[in-house]
């Protein structure tokens, strides 16, 4: 049992230093015919990090996560996960990662416990440890009292949390979550994030997730914004927001096109959104009169706010992520998240 404590110390130290790379991606390309789904990307994920791939549907998120998980072979480039090459040592990689897919992969005619036991055998968990681990992962996702229930009786959120528990059973170094909260209600979504962050904090697990929810990406330590198969920005949420200006001013005018052109001519940073235009400036409130004048057309509506990840996304891709499809977390979710930070 002494070795156990030692291992814990090692991992904790490494993650605090934040210098151990768990995922290394170099010059990664995936082509389907002439179409480059992933177009030459590089990034590194460090131990203990929550790393988010943010982008609209079809941006290359799923293709990338599939390559990281050894499910799809890259056209070119190198990927190393937990110290093993995904192309030459796929089985070594699979032993060390936990996967939660967008669609459920549970057997709903089995109980929660039976699903976990099945997984334990597939992932070679020593028989004498299975019992303790099942207890532990079920406790982590608060499903200890549903152990003997059939999965068919579970709600969508419970099933998703059981999948996360199952992905942790073999003690992966990296947990991959592909759009983990799609189809979940806001409360369940928040609960699931509590689980994930607790795992990171208590067990030092690295989390790699893809999402097209801005609010969800806020939970990540670092975000890579991916669009058309390329990483267009990669940094912490705060740094990404800071980079585009201190304040965002939304304007609705009688002629948004003319207003945008006029403001750009005056040297302002302007993006066109679905309803109106957005200008990024220092001291937004003070700048409002100057902006109205520079717009050159009647202004109907002004709103000044701190930049959000929506603004970041718009800034880097020239589009709003909502155009890519998918609903957005409700105001309730936002409120919960506000409380958290």
């Amino acid at each position, binding site marked *: 049992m002494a070795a*156990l404590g030692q291992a814990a110390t090692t991992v904790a130290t490494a993650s605090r230093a934040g210098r151990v790379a768990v995922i290394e991606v170099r010059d990664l390309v995936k082509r389907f015919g002439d179409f480059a789904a992933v177009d030459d990307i590089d990034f590194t994920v460090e131990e203990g990090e929550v790393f988010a791939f943010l982008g609209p549907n079809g941006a290359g998120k799923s293709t990338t996560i599939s390559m990281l998980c050894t499910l799809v072979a890259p056209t070119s480039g190198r990927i190393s996960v937990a110290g093993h090459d995904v192309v030459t040592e796929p089985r070594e990689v699979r032993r060390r990662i936990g996967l939660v897919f967008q669609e459920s992969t549970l057997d709903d005619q089995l109980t929660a416990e039976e699903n976990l036991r099945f997984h334990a055998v*597939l992932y*070679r968990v020593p028989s004498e440890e299975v019992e303790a681990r099942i207890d532990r992962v079920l406790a982590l996702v608060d499903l200890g009292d549903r152990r003997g229930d059939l999965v068919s009786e579970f709600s969508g959120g419970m099933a998703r949390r059981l999948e996360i528990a199952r992905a942790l059973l073999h003690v992966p170094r990296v947990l991959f979550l592909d759009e983990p909260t799609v189809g979940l209600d806001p409360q369940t979504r928040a609960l699931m994030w509590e689980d994930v962050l607790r795992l990171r904090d208590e067990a030092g697990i690295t989390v790699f997730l893809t999402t097209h929810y801005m609010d969800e990406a806020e939970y990540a330590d670092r975000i890579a914004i991916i669009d058309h198969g390329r990483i267009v920005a990669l940094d912490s949420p705060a740094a990404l927001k800071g980079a585009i200006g201190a304040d965002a001013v939304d304007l609705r005018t009688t002629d948004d096109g003319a207003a945008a052109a006029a403001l750009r001519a005056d040297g302002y940073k302007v993006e066109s959104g679905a309803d109106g235009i957005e200008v990024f400036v220092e001291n937004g409130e003070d700048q409002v009169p100057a902006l109205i004048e520079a717009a050159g057309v009647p202004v109907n509506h002004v709103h000044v706010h701190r930049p959000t990840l929506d603004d970041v996304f718009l800034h880097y891709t020239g589009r709003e992520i909502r155009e890519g499809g998918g609903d957005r977390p409700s105001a309730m979710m936002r409120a919960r998240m506000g409380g958290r930070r």
Partner: protein
Amino acid sequence: MSVDATPMLRPPAAESDLVGELRTIRMVWERELIRFVRTRTRILTGFIQPILFLLVLGYGMSGLVGETAGFDFKKFVFPGIVAMSVVTTAIFSAISIVWDREFGFLREMLVAPTSRASIAIGKTAGGATVAVLQGTLMLVLAPLVGVHLTVGVVLGVIGIELLMATALTAFGVFVASRIEKMESFQVVMQLVLFPMLFLSGALFPLNGLPGWLNVLTHLNPLTYAVAPLRQVVFSAQDMPAAARARFPSQVELFGHVLPIGADLAIVAAFAVLFVALAIRGLSRTR
């Protein structure tokens, strides 16, 4: 809520690979049994369909064919109905792979760091076990049609069932591994399952068929499983020579009457072939 974190940090101790694969086979096998026991409607329908055939064919045809030295068509068709029950259950157990794909569980198995061969073998063993259980359950109907059973006959029947169930489940797993949609599996199986049953001698004697049909029956693996099953059951019945001539139980190949050992060797060869195909099929599945 706070949970002690340390146990999560210990990576699994490496386990010998062979033990790991054997545990995988057992687990996949066990899952098939759990699912079989839990879906009672499946057991029931698996029981009712052969009974219907036994009643309809057995009683219907008995009137037409008549008795020969006290032996009637019901007794002739009974082993065939047992075979039919085994085949249907085996094939529909294999269907669960398509089902698993539809509901995602196949992915859980395919992404695991384990050999696909173990999954194919476990799946085949599970389906075969279920098929043998279902087929053996049919034996309780023996007194109803006047078929006499001994312990030896029952053991012999189970042994032959095991062999044919393995071959057919593996065949089903192979087909299912190549098929993405539930509907296409149903179509393929209707196109394969019924001709296979009808051209196996399970439901009527194969003597006197036209030449081209005769070729088909001899290419059918099931033919070589039905014959030994019938011979084992007949061995315990009181059958005068006239009845044996009227209701033949042996396969003739190139003018030779095949002994039971040859039949079983052919079924075993098919089983090996189909298990190999099933492993290959599942290994190539994404």
